[in-house]
């Protein structure tokens, strides 16, 4: 009988250890990587400096699209901007910018200083439309194909490694 109890206690201990091992080994940094493979939300975004709206459905007209959420007040956006300018030279890619909770005057100054990599520039002055894309801080960048499928999602500024990864995908 004593042996039976020991077997039960050991089995429970192994189970608890296994559960703890699995949960502690998990990455605790929150990401929205679950969105990869999903279709991009259909949202109407106002153009930055002209009247009218850009529908994210239009992304299907381009081979690959990089949807970048940025603002002039965001330091990391300044850091990643040169990589966006570099990527904008690739003919397989269109970069759609979403100017996030920003002042028009400051955003224009930013683009004049740093260059404009955006084929299409839109704005989300209240940040509410960006919720549809799972954005929780900027910069964030989403790579989408012409089937409107999310291929990659970068939270935080992109770097040279990300540029290589994006180029590898779009040059296939």
């Amino acid at each position, binding site marked *: 009988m004593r042996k039976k109890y020991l077997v039960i206690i050991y089995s429970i201990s192994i189970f608890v250890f296994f559960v703890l091992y699995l949960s502690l080994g998990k990455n605790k940094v929150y990401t*929205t990587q679950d969105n990869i493979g999903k279709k991009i939300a259909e949202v109407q975004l106002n153009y930055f400096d002209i009247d009218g709206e850009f529908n994210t459905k239009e992304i299907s007209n381009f081979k690959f699209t990089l949807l970048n959420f940025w603002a002039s007040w965001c330091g990391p956006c300044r850091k990643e901007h040169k990589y966006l300018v570099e990527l904008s030279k690739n003919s397989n890619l269109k970069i759609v910018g979403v100017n996030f909770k920003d002042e028009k005057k400051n955003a224009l100054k930013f683009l004049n200083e740093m260059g404009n990599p955006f084929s299409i520039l839109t704005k989300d002055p209240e*940040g509410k439309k960006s919720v549809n894309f799972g954005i929780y*801080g900027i910069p964030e960048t989403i790579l989408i194909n012409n089937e409107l499928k999310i291929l990659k999602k970068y939270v935080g500024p992109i770097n040279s490694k990300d540029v290589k990864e994006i180029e590898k995908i779009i040059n296939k």
Partner: protein
Amino acid sequence: MKILSLTIVLFFSSVISYCDENKTYEILKNLRCLVCQGQTISDSNSDFALTIKEVVNEKVEEGFSKKEIYHFLSDKYGDWILFNTPLKKNSYILWFVPYVLFILGGALLYLVIRKRTEKTK
């Protein structure tokens, strides 16, 4: 008569607005602020929390149900945004293991007590 109907209209509109406020508060209390340390969206004043508060307010005004709002947000940010994890295939263990352990513990306790009483007899 006019005053009476005006009072009735005002009364019902205030009841509806109170219910909406309550519903919004309940939803915001169950949402995790993703950029804060263990705070709910309701308690946080971060930029992200303020945006989500506005989005939830709008959805409530548009007549979305609680379930629909939770579904919308968990679709965009994952189940991590919800404090009450929904019952799904991958969360069965989380929901049922406490009950299984409780039953097993009870059975074990019963066996031990029965064994001891048998011995004393």
